C-alpha cells in the first residue's frame, strides 16, 4: 500500500474532531492495508518514533542551498507556519519540479525501513543529494509526511487510548489487553502487528511488558463529602513514575513514558535483583536526601535521567531511591483486581520480608511510601500545606476499594496539589509561537522590578484563553519597541499574575532566581506596572519557603 494512503489517513485524522469518527477511519485504514504498513502506522501514531534524522534548521538550510532561496525568506515563512517540515512542504509546492519518473508506489514500510535508514548511512553531500532527489520524485502529497518523519516531528491528534480503542474494536478484544500489548517496546514488523491483533489471549506473552499505568485526576469537590476513612493518603512525590518488573529473575525499570531505563540506574537494577521473589511494583524514582530523609529537587534527577552507565561518582553524588506505593504482581500472579487496601497489606508484608531476608542491604535504595493519617478533611488541608517542607507537590488521595485499572480513570485516585506561589510581573518580551500558535505572539517573558529596571525572571506560554491571546497579540504588534529576529521588546504596560511551583537560586539567570512551571494565571488589567512585584519580593518568597 502506498505512502499516499498514510498521508490521507494523516489528513483525515487531522481534520476530524469526533473520537468515534477517528476510530472508524483508523479501523478502515487497518483493514485495507498490509500488516507491515499497519505496524509502522501504529509506531508513528503512538509517538514511539520521534527519532530526528535531521533537524528542522538543517532541512531549511538544505532547501535554501539547493534552490538558491534566501534564508531570511524561509525564516519569515516559518514565523507564519510554525513548523519547519510544513514550511518546506509549502515551499516545495512553489518549485515547479518536473521529474520524468515519480515514485508513486512507495510504501510506508519502504520509506521507514529502507529509504530513511539508508539516508543516515550517507555522508553529508550524498545525503543532501538524496533528500533533493526524494523531494523531486515523491508525489507532492507525500512531502509533509516525509519531511515530518525526517525531522522527527510527526504528530497528529490521536492518543494511545484512541489507537487502543480502534484495535480493540477491530478484533473485539478488551481494551485492557490491547493497551497492555502496546506497552513497552514496539518494533514495527509483521510479527508485532500480528501480536497486537491476535485473538487468543496468552498472558505469558506480555511478560516483558509493564502494566498500563493508572493515573490520578485533579481533586474534585465531591470527595470532601465522603468519610475520610474511605481513602488512603500519600505524599505526591515529584520524581519519575516507574514500574519495576522482576519476572523470571530479570529486572526491568519502565518509566511512565514507556522507556526502559535500566542503563541509567544500574545500582537499582542490581539491588532489586537480590530480592528472591518475582514481582511488579509501581512507584516513584527520586534523588534522595538521606540526611533529612526527603527528596532532592527534580533538577538533580534530571542529571541522572539521560546519562547511561553513570560512574560511581555520579551515583554517589546523586543517590537515587525507589519509593514503592503499589504491588501489582507477585510470584507471577496479577493482583491488580484486588482492592487497594489489600494490595497495601501485601506490599507491606513483602517489603518487610525482603528487608529482613535479603542478604544484601536493599533499604538504602528501596522503600515503600509512608501513609498519612489525617483526622478529618481540614487536617488534610494542613498536611497539604506542609508538603513544601518535605519537597513534595501535595497529596495523592486513593480510594481504599480501588482496583488498579489503567489510564486517568475517574473517581478513584486524585492529586491534591499545594497552591502555587504567585507574583505579579510585567510583560517585557514576546516571541512568535510555533505549531498551532504559529503567526501569533504567544511566548512571553516577564520582568520584576529592581530599582528602576525590569529584570526578566520567567517565561510562560500557557494560561491565556484564545481570545486573550488574540487581544494580546494585537497589543504586542502595536507596542513593540524593538525587534530582534522573532523576538520583540515591548513597552512595559501589561501586568500578569504568574504562578509557579518552585523558586530557587540560579546563577544562570540575570535575576538570580529560577522558577519551575511558570504560567499565567491572570491578566491583571486592573494593575499598573508600578503595582508589579519586585525581585526583592521574590527573594522574600524564597526565604519564607526554605
Amino acid at each position: 500500500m502506498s505512502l499516499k494512503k498514510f498521508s490521507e489517513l494523516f489528513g483525515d485524522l487531522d481534520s476530524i474532531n469526533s473520537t468515534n469518527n477517528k476510530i472508524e477511519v483508523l479501523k478502515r485504514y487497518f483493514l485495507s492495508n498490509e500488516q507491515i504498513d499497519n505496524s509502522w502506522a501504529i509506531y508513528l501514531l503512538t509517538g514511539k518514533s520521534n527519532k530526528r534524522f535531521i533537524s528542522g534548521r538543517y532541512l531549511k538550510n538544505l532547501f535554501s542551498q539547493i534552490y538558491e532561496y534566501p534564508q531570511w525568506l524561509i525564516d519569515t515563512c516559518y514565523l507564519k507556519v510554525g513548523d519547519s517540515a510544513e514550511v518546506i512542504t509549502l515551499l516545495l509546492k512553489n518549485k515547479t519540479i518536473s521529474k520524468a519518473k515519480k515514485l508513486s508506489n512507495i510504501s510506508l514500510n519502504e520509506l521507514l525501513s529502507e529509504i530513511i535508514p539508508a539516508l543516515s548511512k550517507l555522508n553529508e553531500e550524498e545525503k543532501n543529494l538524496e533528500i533533493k532527489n526524494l523531494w523531486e520524485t515523491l508525489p507532492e502529497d507525500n512531502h509533509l509526511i516525509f519531511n515530518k518523519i525526517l525531522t522527527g516531528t510527526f504528530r497528529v491528534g490521536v492518543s494511545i487510548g484512541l489507537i487502543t480503542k480502534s484495535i480493540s474494536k477491530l478484533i473485539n478484544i478488551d481494551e485492557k489487553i490491547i493497551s497492555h500489548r502496546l506497552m513497552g517496546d514496539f518494533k514495527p514488523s509483521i510479527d508485532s502487528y500480528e501480536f497486537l491483533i491476535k485473538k487468543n489471549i496468552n498472558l505469558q506473552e506480555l511478560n516483558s511488558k509493564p502494566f498500563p499505568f493508572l493515573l490520578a485526576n485533579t481533586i474534585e469537590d465531591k470527595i470532601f463529602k465522603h468519610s475520610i476513612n474511605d481513602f488512603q493518603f500519600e505524599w505526591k512525590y515529584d520524581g519519575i513514575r516507574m514500574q519495576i518488573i522482576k519476572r523470571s529473575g530479570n529486572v526491568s525499570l519502565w518509566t511512565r513514558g514507556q522507556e526502559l531505563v535500566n542503563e541509567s540506574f544500574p545500582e537499582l537494577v542490581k539491588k532489586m535483583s537480590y530480592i528472591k521473589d518475582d514481582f511488579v511494583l509501581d512507584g516513584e524514582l527520586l534523588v534522595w536526601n538521606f540526611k533529612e530523609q526527603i527528596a532532592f529537587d527534580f533538577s538533580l534527577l534530571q542529571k541522572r535521567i539521560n546519562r547511561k552507565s553513570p560512574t560511581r561518582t555520579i551515583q554517589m553524588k546523586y543517590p537515587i531511591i525507589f519509593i514503592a506505593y503499589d504491588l501489582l504482581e507477585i510470584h507471577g500472579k496479577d493482583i491488580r483486581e484486588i482492592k487497594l487496601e489489600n494490595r497495601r497489606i501485601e506490599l507491606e508484608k513483602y517489603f518487610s520480608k525482603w528487608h529482613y531476608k535479603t542478604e544484601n542491604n536493599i533499604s538504602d535504595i528501596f522503600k515503600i511510601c509512608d501513609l498519612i493519617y489525617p483526622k478529618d478533611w481540614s487536617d488534610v488541608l494542613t498536611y497539604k500545606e506542609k508538603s513544601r517542607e518535605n519537597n513534595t507537590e501535595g497529596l495523592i488521595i486513593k480510594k481504599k476499594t480501588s482496583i488498579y485499572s489503567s489510564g486517568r480513570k475517574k473517581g478513584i485516585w486524585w492529586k491534591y496539589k499545594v497552591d502555587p506561589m504567585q507574583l505579579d510581573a510585567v510583560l517585557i518580551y514576546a516571541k512568535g509561537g510555533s505549531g498551532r500558535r504559529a503567526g501569533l505572539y504567544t511566548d512571553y517573558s516577564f520582568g520584576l522590578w529592581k530599582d528602576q529596571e525590569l529584570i526578566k525572571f520567567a517565561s510562560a506560554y500557557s494560561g491565556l484563553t484564545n481570545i486573550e491571546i488574540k487581544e494580546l497579540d494585537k497589543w504586542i504588534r502595536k507596542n513593540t519597541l524593538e525587534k530582534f529576529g522573532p523576538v520583540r521588546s515591548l513597552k512595559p504596560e501589561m501586568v500578569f499574575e504568574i504562578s509557579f511551583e518552585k523558586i530557587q537560586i540560579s546563577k544562570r539567570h540575570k535575576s538570580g532566581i529560577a522558577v519551575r512551571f511558570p504560567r499565567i494565571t491572570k491578566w491583571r488589567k486592573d494593575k499598573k506596572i508600578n503595582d508589579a512585584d519586585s525581585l526583592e519580593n521574590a527573594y522574600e518568597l524564597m526565604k519564607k519557603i526554605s
Partner: protein
Amino acid sequence: MKTKKEYLIRYKNGSLYCELADIWIDPSKPVNKALITHAHFDHFTFGCEEYISTKETAILLKERVGDNIKIKTFEYGEEFKINGINISFHPSGHILGSSQIRFIFAEEKWLISGDFKLQKDETCKQYEIVKTDYLISECTFGLPIFKWDESNKIANDISKWITNSPEKTSLLFCYSLGKAQRLLNEISQTNFKGNIYSHGSIHKMNNSYRELGIDIKDTIKIENKKKIDELKGSLILLPPSLSKGSYLKNFKNIQTAFASGWMSIRALRKRSGYDKGFAISDHADWDGILEVVKKSEAKNVFFHHGDSEALSKYLVEKESINVLLFR
C-alpha cells in the same frame, strides 16, 4: 529628487487618494467622490456623494445596500477624464465586476491593482495585464508558502469530503459574494450531484450573478425549519459570520469547512475551529503577485493590504525592482 507631494496617488486617512482629481479609491470614510474597485463591504462605505465603478459592481452594490446611492458606471477599458486625468477600469479577476484602476496624467501611468487573482474563474473576467509606471498592488498572500492548487482540484476535494460522509450535512463557509459563486460553478462540474442549499445572503448574490449573465447552478434557499433528514448528504453554503453562535444548532450531525486561502496553513486550520479547510482564494498567491509586478513593467511598486516586508525585500534583492513605501 521626488518628494511625497509629487506622487499622483498617496495614502490619506487610511485610504488611497488622488489629490489632483480629488477622488478616493475604496475610501473607508464618507467622501465626495469614490472609485470602487469591487462590491465587497471592506471596500465600500456609506455616505459618499458619488460612487464610480464598473456596471457589474454597481448592480451588485445596489443589490446589497439598496438603490439609495448615486453610482456612475463605466465599461472595462472605457476612459473617462477627471480634472485632466485619464481614468479607466480593467478586469482584476477577483470577483464579478472587480477592477484595477489606471490613472494617466502627464504621460505618467499609475495602476491600482485592486484585489486580484490570476487563477481561472468562470464567474468573472480574467485578469488583464496592464502596463504601468507605478503599481499599487495588494499583497494579502505575499509569502512563497502560498501557492494555490487548481480550483477544480479543490472542488473535487470538496466533493469527496461531502460524499465520504453521506450521513452528514456538510456546511461549507465562504464569502457570500464571489467565493460562493465560484465554488458553486466549480462544484457543479464535479461528481457531487446531491442537493446544494445556500443561505439567503448567498442566494441573493447567485441571482444577481445570473441576471448579469453568469451561469450559476440553482441552489435551494435554506429555511430555518427544514427537516433534518432532508439535509443528509447535502451541501449548504453559509457566510463565515454564522459559524459562531447559535445558528449551527439548526442542524444535526454536521461537518464544517471553511474555504479560504489561509486554510493552506495547518496552524490556522487548527485554530479556525472548522473541521476542515479548503485552500482556495480569490487573491493572488506569491507567484501571482510576482507575475503581475513583472508583466506590468512597473519601475516603482507600492504594496498595501498585507504584510509586505518580505515581498518588498525579495523584489529589491532578487528582481531589482524599486519598492516604495507610503508615508
